[in-house]
């Protein structure tokens, strides 16, 4: 999430490429958040704490 725009829109960066996205389907997203983007709509906000939990579980499964 790079920039909030009028009309519930936002500028997002997809692997470095700028793109417009609608925020009509998500709540409380702020600049700097990562979102799951599908056909021009953000459909969820990526939860950093959950991401860390998942990586920890993967590392444990992998015997690290």
């Amino acid at each position: 999430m790079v920039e909030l725009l009028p009309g519930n829109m936002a500028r997002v960066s997809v692997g470095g490429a700028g793109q417009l996205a609608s925020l009509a389907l998500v709540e409380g997203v702020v600049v700097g958040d990562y979102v799951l983007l599908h056909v021009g709509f953000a459909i969820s906000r990526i939860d950093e704490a959950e991401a860390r939990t998942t990586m920890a579980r993967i590392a444990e499964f992998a015997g690290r």
Partner: protein
Amino acid sequence: MRFIEEYRDSGLAHDLAAAIAAACQPQRDYVLMEVCGGHTHSFARHGLEELLPERVRLVHGPGCPVCVLPAGRIDAAIALARNSDVILCSYGDMMRVPGSKRATLIAAKAVGADVRMVLSTLDALGIARANPEREVVFLGIGFETTAPGTAVALQIARSDRLTNFSVLNNHLLTPPAIRAVLAMPADTPLHGLIAPGHVSAVIGTRVYDEFAVGGQAVVVAGFEPLDLLQSVLMLIRQINAGVARVENGYSRALNADGNRLALAAIAETMPGRRAFEWRGFGLLPESGMQIAEDFAEFDAERRFALNYVSVPDPKSCICADVVRGARVPEACKLFGTVCTPDDPVGPCMVSSEGACAAQWRYGRHRLAPSGEQISA
């Protein structure tokens, strides 16, 4: 990119593969269906099947919306596009999907139909505003993931009083397709389901409880290699323990409840459930979304008085079996000969979520004869 690169770590992937091999019990097979076509392509693109032991078999599921759409629905879109009053807007995935007699939207466009590729329903609304003298029809296809975008467009069209916009609605529901697969155990005896990621971001994980109650191990997975390998190991652990429950391996993106706003948008605009004909499954009751009476004027089927006509699948094409997981792409005699992504006979070969397209792009080297076979 954050939240992506770290889930592609090759060392961790190989260690996970070793843990999977160690977890497999002898004399036991693990047949797992990846329900979502996006997962099919992730497995293929990253060569993950080759990391899995032989005891673990992946079966491709029905989660490719383009693939399960019967040819008659594509014919209806092409017929509408040929109406000179109409601008038909479609996601790129549909442009080269064959209807009957290998007709496609892109071929219709080449002979003058006004077909426009859009990346979002909001683009289609913009085209409607820019062309008030034309009828702009958005070809709505997809499961619960893409349906909210269509729902928002319907809401905006009504609040902005757009009189020249409508939706040709082919939106489908995921749970009826999984139910249909599980009702055909002779086709596809399964031990576990890798449940879709993006769909579940909208509908939540709780909807899969019924499949766990029915005995299926279920893990919702993300799309990166470590996500998928993790989900395989979680399923094997459930199966070994003799339990069947729903686990969320993609909790960074979704939860049990789903997306409240997206579900509300669908509930307002497409609350009804209708019987829908699926390729491979036939008519499934309450499997398609129905545009609400309040939004009837934006329903292209009603606006243009369209009646769905069922047509047979292309001769010799086995997409109908592929989407059920009953046969593999390379079992088709058209695979890679008559049917290629450049000139597809069936939708599974052209869709970016289709199992035949995945096998063609990433799996052909495994089908090719080895050096030993050639010299023999």
